[in-house]
């Protein structure tokens, strides 16, 4: 699923002949950083209310980074630098990325049991 997400990224660039949508891929790198830094490499903290101040800050940063993945294609489209079709492919890619994260989360929680 992650490969198909990256494939859609590259498709959004190749079909329309410009590589600005690859900026969205930068945000994919940023999104998991709060999990690795504050959550000990697990997504457990996202659905828990324990952990105190730093865990809440990590949730905040995860939310802010996630919005960036959606905002970059919208801004590029608004600035007439990419086509509407490329923007929609970017959204599909992001949706598949989120599904990948959810599956990973489910699998790791099952491992905990």
């Amino acid at each position, binding site marked *: 699923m992650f490969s198909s997400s990256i494939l859609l990224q590259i498709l959004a660039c190749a079909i329309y002949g410009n590589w600005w949508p690859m900026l969205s891929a930068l945000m994919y790198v940023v999104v998991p950083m709060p999990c690795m830094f504050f959550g000990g490499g697990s997504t457990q903290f996202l659905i828990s209310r324990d952990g105190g101040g730093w865990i*809440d800050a990590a949730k905040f940063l995860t*939310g*802010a980074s*996630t*919005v*960036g993945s959606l*905002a970059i294609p919208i*801004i590029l489209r608004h*600035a007439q630098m990419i086509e509407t079709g490329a923007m929609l492919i970017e959204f599909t890619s992001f949706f598949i990325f989120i599904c990948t994260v959810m599956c990973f989360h489910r699998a790791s929680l099952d491992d905990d049991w």
Partner: protein
Amino acid sequence: MDLAELWAIFGPGFSGAVFGTGWWFWVDAVVCSSIQVPFVHYLPGIFASLGALMFNCVRKEDIDYSPYDEGEWRLKLWLFIAYVVAFVSLAASVGLLIQDSVVKTGPSTWTGVAGVFQCVFVLISGLMYWTSHSE
């Protein structure tokens, strides 16, 4: 699992999303502006973020609501200053919106609208984080 529990779990993440939305509105306005946006237009967003940070330095469990004791007056003074910063930044963004719509040679109206959106979203995210954050 009741609503307060859900809010405590997902509130910080959602407030982060709202904060990011606010700043990305401003990035969109700056990128799509046909002329250079002067630095004065950046200040309401920066001070709104500062104001949100200021009242998130106070935990809501620490506030004393007793009408009799002198209580934590420094805490309330800090919250009052944070409120003043937030209010002034919001008022400034509205003023800049009006200026952008009236003056033809300046930035477009979308810059002012995005500035107001930025301040509103940043302050709302601060409030959401403050209410959902639990220690």
